[in-house]
């Protein structure tokens, strides 16, 4: 499943140069910020989920997380995608003093979630995680990881452009969609990504749009 999600949602094939670059970016990121693990989650717009597509740093986590879904409206990865902003997470305690003194807790001690943005759209999130007791990432690490996410976004965008060129048509890109008014741009870019990643789902999308149109007309009448 690890690379299936990358290929399904970002049109990045297993063992392709783009996949290698994304892996290198996360490896570099976790080394620089001092994290033990890093992951790449891709956005499944139809399901409204983020899907773990790649995990670096721990084989156990890679096996456990690959293909796992995180609903968009939840957690630090969902927040990073919703705000298009780098977000930092820390454990929750029952007392404010424990939070301040970085009391002992199980699981991740600090998490960075940085959105991968292509044009006006978020296509995924990269994360860095540390389990070292009391360690907290700061804004410097967050900024660095955010920059790596921006580069990862460019890698995805270049893959999309190359796909469009290989199809022989005009180089229709997500940037063209961003010239439209916000709502139309959002619809066009979503449909374009679905067309690239899940051509099989286009019939369903068309059906849904027709249904919604029918509902709106019915409602207006």
């Amino acid at each position: 499943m690890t690379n299936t999600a990358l290929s399904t949602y970002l049109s990045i094939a297993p063992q392709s140069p783009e996949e290698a670059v994304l892996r290198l970016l996360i490896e570099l990121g976790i080394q620089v910020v001092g994290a033990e693990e890093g992951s790449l989650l891709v956005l499944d717009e139809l399901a409204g989920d983020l899907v773990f597509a790649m995990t670096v740093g721990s084989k156990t986590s890679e096996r456990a997380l690959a293909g796992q879904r995180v609903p968009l409206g939840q957690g630090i990865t969902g927040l990073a995608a919703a705000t298009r902003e780098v977000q930092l997470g820390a454990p929750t305690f029952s007392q404010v003093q424990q939070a301040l003194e970085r009391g002992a807790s199980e699981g991740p001690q600090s998490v960075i979630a940085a959105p991968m943005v292509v044009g006006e759209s978020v296509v995924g999130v990269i994360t860095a995680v540390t389990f070292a007791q009391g360690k907290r990432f700061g804004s410097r690490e967050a900024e660095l990881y955010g920059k790596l996410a921006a580069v990862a976004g460019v890698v995805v965008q270049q893959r999309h452009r190359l796909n469009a060129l290989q199809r022989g048509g005009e180089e229709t890109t997500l940037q063209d969609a961003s010239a439209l008014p916000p709502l139309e741009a959002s619809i066009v870019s979503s449909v374009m990504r679905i067309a690239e990643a899940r051509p099989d789902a286009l019939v369903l999308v068309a059906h849904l749009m027709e249904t919604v149109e029918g509902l709106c007309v019915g409602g207006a009448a």
Partner: protein
Amino acid sequence: MLREALGRRIDELTTGLGAVEVAVIDSGVDASHPDLRGRVSGAFRIDCVQGKLRPIELPVGDNNDGFGHGTAVASIVTRMAPCARIVDVRVLGATQSGAGAALIEGMRVALARRCPVVNMSLAATAPYSQSLMALCDAAYRQGQVVVASKRNMPLADNGYPAEFSSCVAVDCARFASPYELRYRAGVPIEFVAHGEDVPVAAPGGGYTTKTGTSFATPAVSAMCALLLGTFPGLRPFEIKSLLRDAAGACERAAASRDA
């Protein structure tokens, strides 16, 4: 009134304060959290109704936060400003996906309610900037102070509305006190406040720490609420002048500590 306010330490404005509504346009607020119980005076959710984004008024006192971001922001405001009453305007969530359009509707709610302080620890993208600028200008004319955060990782812009001159724009740094402030001349993001490892309320009753410009911004909103709670007639440009004055005092104090 400006003359009366000048030279007063903001963190010492603790008595005789009138209640000041602070709109928190964010992911919602857990009003059932012990730190926020009784401190939320209004709650709204921006949702799609018959194909259009509209504000839906919610009962006050419930947990309306999907992410914890808004709860964290609101808890900073209420801890620092005892006079602050939160108006929770939820624009982020599973269905809103952080769309700039929802943020604009949220801003409209804050304008209609005439909340004296509006906290925006969020940034919209460039396509929404013109609509947002018009709303921030309208807020300025109504005497509302819009406090907005810089993007944590700016690429093409610092984030909107933080770039607008009608707003108080905030970056973050690590300071010893949450009331510590710095002023930067000649740049759009003019103020720097404490935003590293800030203790905050988490939905469900717990506590965590947060880092980023999102959590420096409510510190400045709280300072605005303290000023307005003490001197209710202050206009937004006077508030900016007083914040600049406070930042100057903080810098001088820091310089004398270092000397």
